[in-house]
């Protein structure tokens, strides 16, 4: 399953981090950001994204702008069934994931798939609750692409201040790119609303120590290009190239992520990196830097020989 992600970067940063070269290109180009198709739905960056939230989605521009270059556009997580009447978020179905096993037979997913509505969910990583230790011991983990040495995936600054140039493209941390399908739904007001679902499959051996299902990760540029190019690559071909990846890494995070209302930046930090004021207080007291302790005490401390 994949039901929680982290998308806490600016729109521009997603554009840079998904830059690419077309076959004829010599320089890198960024996907254009398009908001206008989904005008009521704006992407709000957060480290704790849950279904019904709106996140950046990478697609081929064909359906939207009439030419095949890539675009990024915000869409609602959880495919809204085209037959649904009412509010966009009260269809009551859990459609944040579609199982690869029955994607071609599903009433909901087979139609957009044959229409070529394949998309890529971009995020810094996703969360999974480890269930393999038995019931009642669910621990949340943050799962992301392996990064270059010394790069912390939870450090927003590493992303936001990373270099981009036409010549070298994106030099920052690697985004996680997941294969999905999207669809269009008409609201009662006649507005078009775009929504998506993440494709999941049986886990690889490495990942199964965490969870038995894994989202379909597009781990290289070739896979990304093939997944988006619906003219050249048929639905069946595209589905058959998806494999459970072994190329993921993860760490345990705090259970504050359990509640999707908690949008704290600590959500995707390794537990050991979370600093709260009480611990800062304790550390400064122990090191004798507490501003309120009187000088006498401090001097006495210094005079004491340390073993």
């Amino acid at each position, binding site marked *: 399953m994949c039901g929680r992600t982290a998308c806490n970067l600016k729109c521009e940063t997603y554009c840079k981090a998904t830059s690419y070269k077309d076959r004829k290109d010599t320089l890198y180009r960024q996907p254009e950001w398009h908001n206008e198709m989904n005008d009521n739905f704006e992407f709000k960056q957060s480290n704790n994204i849950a279904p019904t939230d709106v996140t950046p989605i990478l697609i081929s521009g064909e359906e939207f702008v009439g030419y095949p270059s890539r675009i990024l556009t915000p869409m609602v997580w959880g495919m809204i069934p085209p037959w649904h009447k009412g509010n966009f978020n009260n269809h009551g179905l859990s459609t944040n994931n579609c199982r690869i096993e029955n994607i071609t037979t599903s009433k909901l997913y087979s139609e957009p798939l044959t229409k070529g509505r394949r998309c890529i969910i971009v995020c810094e990583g996703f969360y999974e609750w480890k269930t393999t230790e038995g019931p009642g011991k669910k621990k949340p983990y943050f799962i992301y692409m392996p990064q270059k040495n010394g790069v912390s995936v939870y450090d927003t600054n590493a992303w936001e201040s990373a270099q981009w140039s036409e010549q070298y493209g994106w030099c920052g941390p690697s985004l996680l790119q997941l294969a999905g399908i999207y669809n269009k739904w008409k609201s009662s007001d006649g507005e078009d609303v775009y929504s998506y679902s993440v494709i999941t499959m049986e886990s690889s051996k490495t990942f199964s120590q965490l969870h038995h299902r894994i989202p379909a990760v597009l781990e290289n540029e070739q896979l990304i290009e093939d997944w988006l190019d619906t003219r050249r690559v048929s639905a069946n071909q595209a589905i058959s190239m998806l494999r459970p990846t072994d190329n993921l890494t993860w760490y345990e995070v705090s259970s504050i992520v359990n509640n999707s209302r908690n949008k704290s930046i600590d959500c995707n930090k390794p537990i050991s990196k979370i600093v*709260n004021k*009480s611990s800062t207080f304790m550390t400064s007291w*122990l090191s004798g830097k*507490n501003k309120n302790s009187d000088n006498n005490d401090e001097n006495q401390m210094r005079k004491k020989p340390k*073993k």
Partner: protein
Amino acid sequence: MFEARLLKSGQLKKILEAIKELLKEATFDCSDSGIQLQAMDDAHVSLVSMYLKSTGFDKFRCDRNLSMGINLESMVKIMKCCSNDDIMTIKAQDNADTLTIMFETSNQEKMSDYEMKLMNLDQEHLGIPETNYSCVIKMPSTEFARICRDLSQFGESVIIACTKDGVKFSTSGDIGSANVKLSQSASIDKEEEGVSIEMQQAVCLTFACRYLNLFCKAAPLSPQVILSMSGDVPLVVEYQIEELGFIRYYLAPKIEEDD
């Protein structure tokens, strides 16, 4: 060579029960004056300081100072193998990577020994600043445990307010609020059964219930608990272990986060 013999292994059992939920592993520093442990929990919000003096042991020998990194969960497993009345001996060579723990029944009819692997732990050297506390509250440890348990049903944090009239523990949460007030005992037969307050200045601080409840696991070690508080310093919760030493827990007050 390090060797320490304790007539009642139950005492060490209780000590481990009192720290194992705060610390997964810890370094026991042995010297000829005794065994000392100082460590912070993972969140660095609390500190455990334990001292067992050599004179509290039946036999104690420590030729060279020794730091033993111990996985507390493993040690608890070993301690479960003894009865409280068993005589216990802990032994280690000077540069050993294992610790030997032996139990013998008081009638010496059963002997068992366990060997445990030691760990290399990163040691933080923590100097605990000497502090004059504005309030020192002595009360029965079972009463303190009861109050912490009761109040944690209502909220995540407890406000401890100490004035010359007494000490008030209060909390509030989704279902409502709770207050427990203790006054100084007027007359008591035994000191540890009463509540006594020494106060220079009134203090009111907020602490996380979860930690207080973990500290209360030390209640079986001592009939009395001593709470020391001052503004802008951690709370100290102290349990004196008869003839053997003490466990002190330090807890940073709760500070509201900005976001």
